[in-house]
């Protein structure tokens, strides 16, 4: 793996040099606020939302009552009952507080992230156009979808929208970090969408607002990272159900214990039963669950990606197939003309002249590179004739060109499209055209045929550069079980060469927008989850059809509306990072749940012999804990302290490696399953050694 690829894996959003924007997130005073917040969250109305921790909260109240009146449920023999109950109440309170603290820290970090995002959209006064053409001033936050607003040089664009009229340059550095202003004009694929919070630097635009207040991309992301409107994802709901049931099972096991204990003449202390209950229910994962979810969304925001829901991020972890556009994702931006190959015996400078004529109106980098190459080859200048008109490239015709007033038609485009054109004008196909086509395709280049009316003159070789490090990323994806499919308008041979060089698993050549949707549907019919990246308006249906659609911020409003995520850096390989975050989210939940349940074994061995010491269960005290009271308190202290100890892991997420599922399971079972069984034995024994002499 080369250095660049390594860097791309480690740094969020790829190497620094390729990133455009990092939100400035301030973590100042975060922990102080979190400590306060953790107390506010003790409010029962808030506590009740987390069923596992609410059981601990109730336990705290009961043990507190038992501290004040130890004889509440009948008198007990232990003279130290009040002290022990008091200690239990304190530790339980600490347990709830630690869980609150974890959530508060995650929320605090999310808020900091949200503030950084919010800074991009200071509230401005917008000029709304009324039906009669007059203007009124209105706060940007009150703009509705469908409103039309006018902005002139110096104004902040008040909301996400689409350009209706005007041509202007817009400074989008607040969002993308790109300092050069971008041209915005109506009707164009990529230049007609504007984002709220960017500044217009010249001229004037009329914009139709496309998002209701608070519904723009940034607003949705702010709500997500703040955790305020965080809706639980399906996986999270299923896990919450399982945790609630485990809690009920243990509640049942402990609640039915007193009559049994009384029957064998060993009545159990209510406070210690509560301690046992709290030790057994999955407090570790219960206390950290919401922190894990919030932190996950926070990580997504750090990658400069705006997700519309947590569900979309987790769906990324399940992706089986990834559809990627070749251009800009697998190959470096634009192809450049490298060579003219004459066919049918035409001299090379004639080929250059026809190619030049066909590219007069082509403002794409490819078109400009053709003009440059033609200038190099030909000494005579070719001024644009009066009255000539340009013909833009379209995905359907797959060619572009120039029409002269005298009826001469210059065309350049995909070889079979030009063949069709020449035939339709009554021309013949030169015998060596196919050889030239293959020659270029085998080099991995794009062959473009050029013709004047019915005569085909030659083939332009457009050269493609594969991005460095992309192959390693596809290898990673393959190890994760994700199949990559390259979409390209290129012919089969070119596509095959590039696909092989880039290391994608499959490709779709000569792809039309319909082909993209068909490809997605074909995969989905097999039960696969498909992700795709796109930017053009004609990508919108495919983005909507895909299970995860990532639109580039540079893309059109339609593409962004159809997608579940928008990448502010417009870096299509970012999807790989989001897949990792989605997987990490699930892994962290699974690992901490396993850890939590595995812990119960040791806690049983600490508390059960202590609870029933009088009836000869001593041999179960395998840890050799000092005294029954010390055993119970040690297990509880461990139970409370493990929550803050695991907060960093919950916020960071379990490390993800691109390994096969079986290898990942092996690793995580060893660390969190086996580790979760053994660690508490050691920790509880250590705490007992420390507090044993005090408790006696």
């Amino acid at each position, binding site marked *: 793996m080369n250095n660049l690829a390594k860097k791309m894996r480690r740094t969020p959003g790829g190497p620094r040099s390729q990133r455009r924007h990092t939100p400035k997130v301030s973590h100042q005073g975060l922990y102080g606020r979190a400590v306060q917040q953790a107390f506010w969250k003790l409010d029962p109305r808030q506590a009740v939302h987390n069923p596992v921790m609410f059981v601990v909260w109730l336990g705290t109240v009961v043990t507190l009552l038992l501290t004040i009146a130890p004889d509440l449920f009948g008198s007990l023999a232990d003279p130290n009952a009040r002290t022990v109950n008091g200690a239990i109440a304190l530790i339980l309170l600490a347990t709830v507080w630690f869980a609150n603290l974890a959530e508060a820290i995650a929320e605090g970090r999310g808020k900091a992230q949200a503030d950084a995002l919010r800074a991009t959209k200071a509230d401005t006064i917008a000029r709304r156009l009324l039906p009669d053409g007059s203007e009124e001033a209105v706060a940007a936050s009150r703009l509705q979808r469908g409103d039309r607003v006018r902005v002139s040089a110096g104004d902040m664009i008040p909301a996400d929208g689409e350009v209706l009229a005007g041509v202007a340059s817009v400074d989008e550095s607040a969002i993308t970090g790109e300092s050069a202003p971008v041209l915005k004009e109506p009707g164009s694929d990529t230049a007609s969408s504007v984002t709220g919070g960017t500044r217009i630097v010249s001229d004037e635009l009329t914009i139709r607002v496309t998002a209701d207040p608070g519904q723009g991309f940034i607003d949705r992301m702010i709500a997500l990272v703040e955790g305020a409107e965080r809706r639980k994802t399906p996986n999270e709901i299923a896990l919450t159900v*399982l945790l609630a049931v485990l809690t009920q*099972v243990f509640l049942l096991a402990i609640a039915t214990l007193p009559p049994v204990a009384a029957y064998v003449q060993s009545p159990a202390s209510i406070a210690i039963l509560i301690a046992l209950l709290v030790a057994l229910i999955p407090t570790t994962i219960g206390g950290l669950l919401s922190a894990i979810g919030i932190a996950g969304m926070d990580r997504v925001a750090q990658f400069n990606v705006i997700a519309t829901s947590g569900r979309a991020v987790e769906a990324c972890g399940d992706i089986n197939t990834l559809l990627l556009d070749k251009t800009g994702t697998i190959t470096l931006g634009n192809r450049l003309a490298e060579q003219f190959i004459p066919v049918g015996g035409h001299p090379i400078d004639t080929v250059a002249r026809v190619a030049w004529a066909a590219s007069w109106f082509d403002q794409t980098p490819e078109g400009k590179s053709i003009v440059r190459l033609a200038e190099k080859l030909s000494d005579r200048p070719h001024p644009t004739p009066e009255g000539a008109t340009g013909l833009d490239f379209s995905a359907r015709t797959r060619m572009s060109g120039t029409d002269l007033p005298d009826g001469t038609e210059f065309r350049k485009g995909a070889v079979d499209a030009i063949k069709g054109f020449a035939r339709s004008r009554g021309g013949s196909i030169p015998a060596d055209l196919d050889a030239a086509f293959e020659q270029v395709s085998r080099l991995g280049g794009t062959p473009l045929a050029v013709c004047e009316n019915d005569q085909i003159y030659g083939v332009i070789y457009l050269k493609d550069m594969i991005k460095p490090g992309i192959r390693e990323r596809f290898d990673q994806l393959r190890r994760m079980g*994700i199949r990559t499919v390259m979409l390209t308008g290129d012919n089969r041979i070119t596509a095959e060469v590039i696909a092989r060089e880039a290391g994608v698993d499959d490709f779709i050549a000569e792809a039309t927008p319909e082909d993209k949707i068909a490809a997605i549907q074909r995969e989905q019919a097999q039960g696969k989850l498909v992700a795709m990246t796109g930017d053009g308006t004609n990508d919108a249906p495919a983005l909507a059809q895909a299970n995860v659609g990532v639109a580039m911020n540079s893309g059109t409003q339609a593409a962004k509306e159809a997608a579940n995520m928008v990448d502010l850096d417009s870096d299509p390989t970012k999807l790989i990072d989001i897949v990792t975050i989605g997987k990490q989210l699930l892994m962290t939940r699974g690992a901490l749940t396993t850890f939590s349940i595995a812990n119960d074994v040791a806690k049983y061995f600490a508390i059960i012999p202590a609870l029933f010491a009088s009836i000869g*269960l001593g041999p179960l005290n395998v840890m050799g804990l000092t005294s029954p009271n010390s055993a119970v308190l040690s297990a509880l202290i461990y139970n409370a302290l493990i929550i803050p100890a695991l907060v960093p892991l919950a916020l960071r997420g379990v490390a993800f490696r691109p390994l096969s599922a079986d290898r990942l399971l092996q690793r995580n079972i060893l660390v969190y399953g086996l580790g979760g069984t053994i660690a508490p034995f050691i920790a509880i024994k250590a705490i007992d050694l420390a507090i044993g002499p005090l408790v006696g």
Partner: protein
Amino acid sequence: MLSGWLQIALTLLIVGAIAPFLGRYMARAFQGPDWLPERWLYRQIRHRTDEPMTGGQYLRAVLASNLAIGLVGLGAFWLQDRLPLNPTGLGAPNWDLAVHTIASFLTNTDQQHYSGETAITYGSQVGILGYLLFFSAATGLAVGIAFIRGLSGQPLGNFYRDLTRSITRVLLPLSLPIALLLLLNGVPETLAGPAIASTLEGATQAIARGPVAHFEAIKQLGENGGGFFAINSAHPFENPNNFTNSLEIVAMLAIPTSLIFTYGEISQNRRQAWWLFGLVGSIFLGLVALSAIAEWQGNPTLAPGPNLEGKEQRFGWAQTALWAVTTTATMCGAVNGMHDSLMPGSGLATLLGLFLQMVWGGQGTGTAYLYVFLILTVFLTGLMVGRTPEFLGRKIEKREIILASAILLVHPVFVLIPGAIALAFPEQLAGISNPGFHGVSQVIYEYASAAANNGSGFEGLGDGTLWWNLSATVSMLAGRYLPIAALLLLADGMAQKQPAPATSGTLRTDTFLFTTVTGVTILILGLLTFFPVLALGPIAEGFALR
């Protein structure tokens, strides 16, 4: 001593040899075309048995048929004194005993709060209980097969057809040769009343007998366990010698062990079937070893030697320990010795079988419980590899977790709550014969046996009372029908999911690692719930004996 261990090993080897073949046979039996006599039967009931049912329809069919047959059985049982085949002139049962008995046989539990010799007429034994032995086993088997189909993504099938095939293709063909073998070994099959014999002292003695051989075969094979006589298979007329004893053990294990392979065939996942067979087999061997060692070592406070209290001399410690673990692991519930007299280690082993419910488990349902644990394990471990967990390519989501958790919750609710109530009022309710730790085991065992639809008794309880009859009835019914409902809905939901193709990112469930993790999950989830009562019952008793 060595011969005892050899007996155990030999019996289990036979089971291991039969299971793969019987499993494959059952897959074909349930998936193949109708036989001519079956088609004739379906025409008589005018039911379109070739139409598959949804989960809800299947469940309604199970409940409706069980309710109807339960009510008819209850009515007939009440009137048994007026019905034919009553050579000893027995009277009608108490209402609570009648309800308990019918619920017990209908749910495949076969818990008995009566003595067959003095409470049940031949007519009731053959016509009501004998019918229920087949019907309840066939119901369980049908649900098990429907569950396996659903997991494999097939339609659940038709309950009436599965029920019919369970009887015509599995239970009848297998129980006939078993009954003949028992007959050859001296098990009676007669409608004549008790034999009257003159003893050497000149006194007369009435020796109970009856149509036992056919009853015994399906009782063992169908995991029923309700004996013709009060002392069940310890009675020489039910289980005369070592050959019949081994035959009956093999009969108990035959179907639940084979069903794992039936799953392998139907789901086209033979590799996983072998792993699961190995997993359940290892847990089973562990329980057998725990019990056998405890019985072989005997009571340390008495003279050294195996524990022979409450055992038939003709079976000895080894065959009794193997039987005790087998009968509780398979939810058969037949006994060939006194479980009350088992050592605490055996008490622990038998209780574990009842708590886990999947160490082979009940007819059809046990195998389904195994997959419920598998689904829960897939959920936990699936998350750990960073994907929405899936089993056989189908996603495990909220609905599956709710249904699987419901199954997990039913057992503790209907064991621990009534157990705690009984122990809270030991004088009024429990009627425990051995107070202390052993009493805890007696009470918990009774409810665990009822809720797991096992039916064996720890015994020693005065259990023929109104309280025991009714509370055990509640546990039996809830322990039977709530999980069946959850299983069918779970299977239905899984069948309707679109399976995703496996990639290297998919967690494979047919590996050693995953199987081991499943085993540990089963032990932890199963045991964490019951550890406190086990600690106060057999574990405390074990420590007290040292």
